[in-house]
């Protein structure tokens, strides 16, 4: 009973974080900021949903499985965020016009920067 409640709260919180990430995806100005924001929300949001599921099921087996899934999620989320941003930079995706410093300029070859929206 108590475990059901904790599970529901964790799942709700996780869903809320993923929802915020979705809104951020629409609101943020360039692909790097979007990737930055959604990677973190996906990491914690999905981990919370998995932890909540483990609580709701309430067996040791579920806890182990969800634990493994959470660890893999923590490894996978930043890697995917990194790869998306790296590919975007190399493809010439424009940076937001308020970006102050770009040390990467000149380090990697970049096709003529795409027209900013």
């Amino acid at each position, binding site marked *: 009973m108590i475990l059901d409640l904790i599970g529901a709260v964790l799942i709700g919180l996780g869903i809320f974080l993923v929802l915020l990430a979705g809104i951020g995806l629409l609101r943020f100005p360039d692909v790097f900021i979007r990737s930055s924001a959604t990677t973190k929300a996906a990491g914690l949001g999905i981990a919370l949903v998995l932890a909540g599921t483990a609580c709701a099921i309430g067996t040791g087996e579920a806890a182990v499985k969800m634990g493994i899934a959470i660890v893999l999620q923590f490894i996978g989320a930043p890697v995917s965020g990194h790869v998306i941003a790296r590919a975007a930079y190399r493809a010439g995706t424009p*940076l937001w016009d308020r970006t102050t410093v*770009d*040390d990467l300029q000149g380090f990697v070859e970049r096709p003529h920067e795409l027209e900013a929206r």
Partner: protein
Amino acid sequence: MKRVIGVLRRLPYIVWALLVFLWALVLSNVRVAWEVLTPGLSMTPAIVRVPTRTRSDWETTLLANMITMTPGTLSIEVDEDTRDLYVHTLYYEGREAFLAEIASLERTLLKATR
């Protein structure tokens, strides 16, 4: 056996690094949530070259992942010769402050891996 003892000796630092990581993850989510929910964008993004003291691919990967999960930062590129990272940050307030922030994260991590 030597390896096991090494891990046991470093266990407190490993646990500490995990706690720092989890706390950073929570903080970064709060920050993103705040940015999403309040009108206007208060970000000053930048891509900064960060020198690192990591010595193996394993350490570099862990550091890059930890940077990505901490508030406002995302590892974009790595210089494979010098192991320097190129990090995108949302709240840039000068190079020194930023490098100090990453260096403190790096110290926490390297204590756990060495």
